[in-house]
């Protein structure tokens, strides 16, 4: 029509792929989540804090009386409660992140069509992913903080390194949340969503949460060491029990890779689902 609007488009769009995915406005998605939580189900959210505490009290005290002490990674004995507390903390991080990034997301994606609405604004898929994950992490951080206070009161933090367990918990939660959202995007029915629980439960029971890995035959150990929860449990246990070495960085690296892959997966899926 008019010649005015002719732009050197090729050169402009070369640097575009990232800007088309991310508008730098993930915080608006987090605000939305905070508002929604406040006005609907805050009691349920608060209650999530008690779940790991119940486990800790029951198993730490009751089972602890049967088990006695457990040998820590550096060879000296620690009370059973101090052994399982970091396991429960890592598990709580995983469960919180997974719940927020799977069931919650599934509902918003398939029924509420919430993301369809968000992505017809200037938000990009990465804004949505980071916003949702950010909210899950904020919630996870609160739980973790509460749990660590309880650990401190019960004398289960054996070292000052325990303070570093807090960011470690967030790292673990980030890893699970970024993957959870991507995987959920493939799910189309409640029956398929049940599969997530079917994967989570064995991970919870087997990842050296309740007893050291040495209980298993060697090949089983290898499989479990490949699982993300074991990596998280070991990282956090190292910090709260004060058995700290450079080796812990491998667990950190594991999670950094997991986060990166998870974000790529989630963003691609959101793009494919809502912007194709």
């Amino acid at each position, binding site marked *: *029509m008019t010649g005015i609007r002719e*732009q050197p*488009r090729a050169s402009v*769009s070369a640097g575009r792929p990232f800007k088309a995915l991310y508008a730098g406005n993930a915080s608006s998605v987090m*605000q*939305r989540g905070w*508002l929604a939580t406040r006005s609907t189900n805050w009691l349920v959210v608060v209650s999530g804090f008690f779940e790991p505490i119940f486990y800790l009290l029951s198993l730490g005290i009751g089972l602890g009386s049967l088990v006695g002490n457990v040998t820590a990674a550096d060879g000296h004995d620690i009370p059973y409660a101090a052994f399982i507390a970091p396991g429960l903390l890592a598990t709580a991080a995983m469960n919180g992140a997974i719940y927020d990034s799977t069931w919650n997301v599934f509902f918003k994606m398939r029924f509420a069509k919430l993301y369809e609405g*968000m992505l017809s604004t200037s938000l990009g898929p990465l804004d949505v992913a980071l916003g949702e994950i950010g909210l899950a992490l904020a919630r996870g951080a609160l739980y973790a903080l509460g749990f660590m206070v309880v650990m401190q009161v019960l004398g289960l933090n054996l070292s000052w390194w325990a303070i570093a367990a807090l960011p470690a918990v967030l790292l673990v939660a980030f890893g699970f949340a970024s993957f959870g959202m991507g995987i959920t995007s493939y799910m189309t029915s409640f029956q398929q969503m049940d599969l997530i629980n079917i994967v989570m439960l064995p991970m919870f029971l087997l990842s050296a949460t309740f007893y050291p890995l040495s209980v298993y035959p060697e090949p089983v150990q290898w499989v479990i060491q490949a699982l993300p929860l074991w990596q998280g449990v070991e990282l956090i246990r190292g910090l709260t029990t004060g058995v700290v070495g450079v080796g812990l960085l491998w667990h950190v690296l594991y999670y950094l890779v997991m986060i990166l892959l998870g974000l790529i997966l989630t963003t691609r899926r959101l793009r494919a689902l809502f*912007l*194709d």
Partner: protein
Amino acid sequence: MPGPVITATKLVKKYKDFAAVDGISFQVAPGESFGLLGPNGAGKSTTMRMVGAVSTRTSGDLEILGLDPNAFGPEIRSQLGVVPQTDNLDTELRVRENLMVYGRYFGLPRAAVAARASELLEFAQLADKAKAKVDDLSGGMKRRLTIARALINEPRILLLDEPTTGLDPQARHILWDRLFRLKEQGTTLVLTTHYMDEAEQLCDRLVVVDKGRIMAEGSPAALIREYSSREVLEVRFGSERNADAATRLAGIGDRIEVLPDRILVYSSDGEAELARITELGLHPITSLVRRSSLEDVFLRLTGRSLIE
């Protein structure tokens, strides 16, 4: 004269082998009210999604506000208001919060959004429902809230996909009134519909779409003039005798369409045709003379009824 705000050239969208949109070209001028009229599955919604920069075209060219949606999705979307076919309001938030949060998605300052939200609640006649839960609103109210939400960023183009489908007649009229006001204020409207009355009320210009292609283009009046007669006579003989009667009506009117339940006679004078039918000794159970509508245009172009 300013250039068009939307230019689509040979636009194609394929899902695997199926072409939902199969080479559509059109332009929309600023301030114009432009409609896509067609039956369900014609490719209207797919076209709207491409114009809304949430669907990538398979081939062809598309320019929205001078930008290519493939590369400038967020920038384009920041200038659009979108009213999707099914309401996707945030049911976990209350009415006013829906507007506030949506405004924040555009990165607008909180104070600006707050002021705008109050204005829009007035506009949508929902001011007294500001604190209500979304689920407690009626269908018409939800629709108006969705439109208010789409206006939060003061969009240059408002996209409406089947804006009144599923609403009762009263709610439709309220909504049309609101949309008409927007049109008067100079907002560019692009809407899809399968209701001809809606297209006639709201559209300055429209394209008739079927099976992913454009069948005709023009203003409602021009389309009716071109593809139909001034009046239509509808006669019913009862479902058993319809086909038989139709054979005896040959030569009456400019043109005849035989539908399963009735016969349409196109003519400039419907009453005169009815008189001729009675002279032939045929006595329809019911008869009706009406003005031609877009429904007739669609029937003429595709041989099918718009609402099936």
